[in-house]
């Protein structure tokens, strides 16, 4: 999205600055504004990067080294902190739990959300609008209101403190966002192709899975990335509904480790745990940076 606009602007510029070359010379005022802008933005970039750098360096240092100087290099580069965080403090187990929970709920919510959005967007069903507005309401209400009853609903279903219980609540709470965004996407797909599938004798099921869903791939990808980040970062649901230490996910494990140690925290191990938690999202961010910023901009153009 944003890149498209940028391309359009670039084309504009080359057209305009073609004949009148003399106008491209910067004035002193331009330089001041440009300079100040660069300095301010660079300072902010520094404020963002420094804590990250501190964490990365710290994850290789001993706690004593961290306290000695914030940006000194470690005397020995090794993965001791990572190993002890992964093994001794069970961040390895939590990592696996997080992968299972986020992976399963992501697949489920994408399938269910796409199906629901498809029906709501392309079929006239009595009550369809009501469902749509119900989803919107679910998107705006604070999840905290639901926490206590949810606790007892899961308890009644024997799902409290289990991974399946966590997965199903993740799915339920990610559903409104997914449906809301895919709704407009399915709405924009051409009707002729759907009709053609029917004419060729495809069932409703086949039309969706073999014709419509593949066409919705770009929208699905954008929503899936956003959902992955949202689910990976989920915190309130696991700390209230998943209190069994063996089933901990990374976000709650981090919090419990940090609060149990207080100021006597082993900074080195903590940094390693932080890195373990953010490396997956970092990878997703780097890989899908363009789509992610694109989908953010897409959200504004509605």
């Amino acid at each position, binding site marked *: 999205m944003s890149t498209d*606009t*940028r391309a359009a*602007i670039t084309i504009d*510029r080359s057209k305009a600055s073609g004949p009148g070359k003399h106008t*491209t*010379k*910067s004035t002193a*005022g*331009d330089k001041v504004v440009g300079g100040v*802008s660069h300095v301010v*933005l660079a300072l902010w*970039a520094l404020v*963002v990067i420094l*804590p990250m750098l501190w964490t990365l360096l710290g994850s290789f240092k001993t706690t004593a080294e961290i306290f000695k100087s914030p940006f000194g290099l470690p005397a020995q580069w090794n993965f001791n902190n990572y190993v002890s965080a992964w093994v001794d403090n069970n961040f390895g187990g939590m990592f696996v739990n997080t992968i299972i929970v986020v992976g399963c709920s992501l697949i489920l919510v994408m399938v*269910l959300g796409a199906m*629901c959005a*498809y029906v709501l967007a392309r*079929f006239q*069903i009595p009550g369809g609008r009501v*469902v749509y507005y*119900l989803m919107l309401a679910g998107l705006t*209400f*604070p999840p*905290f*209101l*639901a*926490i*206590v*009853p*949810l606790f*007892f609903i899961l308890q009644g279903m024997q799902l409290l403190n289990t991974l399946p219980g966590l997965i*199903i609540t993740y799915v*339920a*709470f990610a*559903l*409104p966002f997914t*449906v809301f965004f895919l709704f407009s996407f399915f709405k924009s797909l051409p*009707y002729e192709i759907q*009709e053609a599938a029917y004419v060729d*004798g495809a*069932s*409703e*099921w*086949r039309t969706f899975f073999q014709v419509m869903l593949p066409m919705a791939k770009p929208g699905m990808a954008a929503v899936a990335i956003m959902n992955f980040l949202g689910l*990976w*970062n989920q*915190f309130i649901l696991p700390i*209230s509904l998943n209190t069994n230490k063996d089933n901990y996910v990374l976000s709650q494990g*981090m*919090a419990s480790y*940090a609060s149990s140690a207080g*100021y006597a925290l082993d*900074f080195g191990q903590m940094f390693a745990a*932080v890195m373990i938690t953010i490396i997956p*999202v970092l990878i997703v*961010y780097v890989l899908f*940076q363009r789509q992610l910023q694109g989908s*953010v*901009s897409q959200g504004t*153009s509605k």
Partner: protein
Amino acid sequence: MSLSSPGLDSALDTAAVTAARAGRRKAPRLGRRRLTFDYVSFLLVFLGLPLVIFLVFVISPFIQAVYYSMTNWTGFSPNMQFVGLQNFVKLFQDPTFLQAMGNNILLAVVVPLITIVIALIFASMITVGGPSHGNVRGLKGSSFYRVVSFFPYVIPAIVIAILWAMIYSPTGLLNGALGVLGIDNKQWAWLGEQSTAMGATIFVIVWSMVGFYMILFIAAIKGIPGETLEAARIDGAGRFRTVTSIVLPQIRDNVQTAYVYLGIMALDAFVYMAGLNSTGGPSNSTLVMSQYLFRTAFEKGQFGLATAMGVVLAIITLLFAALVIGVFRLIGGKDEGGRS
């Protein structure tokens, strides 16, 4: 499901499908369907399944919460009495809850304001900070800033909070950096002192949000037609004037949405608080309602009272959204009807 079999005209195995095919030959129009097995099973699974999950795990807890908030339920004992609005009366006489509510309201006002102002300044610099001749264009090399500032958005909020708790700790990065600059503040505990705890907390939330809203505003500004900016420039508007008189009114809806979202986030704020000061900070100076709710529910077991807090939180959230939308209507006029 024989969905994976190749070729659309390959034999499908149910009689219902044949029936559906026969039925559709006459009425292929969308919207009006015959209730064949295919169509009904499709609707049941496609709409019914997600809807059941959604109703059971999202909508029903919300509705139950409203009822529980009017009981003295403690969760583990079966007897639960209906006490009407007693819980709410109790809440509004509880100084700790009122303090938490005050902190939430402070956050809901201050966090969006600071975040949006900073994000707007950055977005304007990036989009219209370029040379003042020719077409209006952005700063050179700005994609670096965009990639970097957006980064905190993808980090789990709890990690951000814990990280900043370490940065703010007496021996942490901030005091270390100040020491390098020659400022010795004797190992100040930024989150442990009442005078700085709230400010430090607000900074963390702003830090994590600025990049996201900057990207949002950049996209919105790029959506403004180039001719509009051009015309302003020809009429002699400088960059500042362009931003305040042309850009801001054009992206008013985006700013409004951002304000609502940031405010809702600040009214919750649980994740940040849990990482920064899980106990509520020095003399509860950073305690928020959600934290108090969590403590009342899962530590004290007073579920009725806790859900009452949830209801108060939800009402404040709705009021806040209505207020923001109302204020934006007032200051912006209603000429555009809310959407461009």
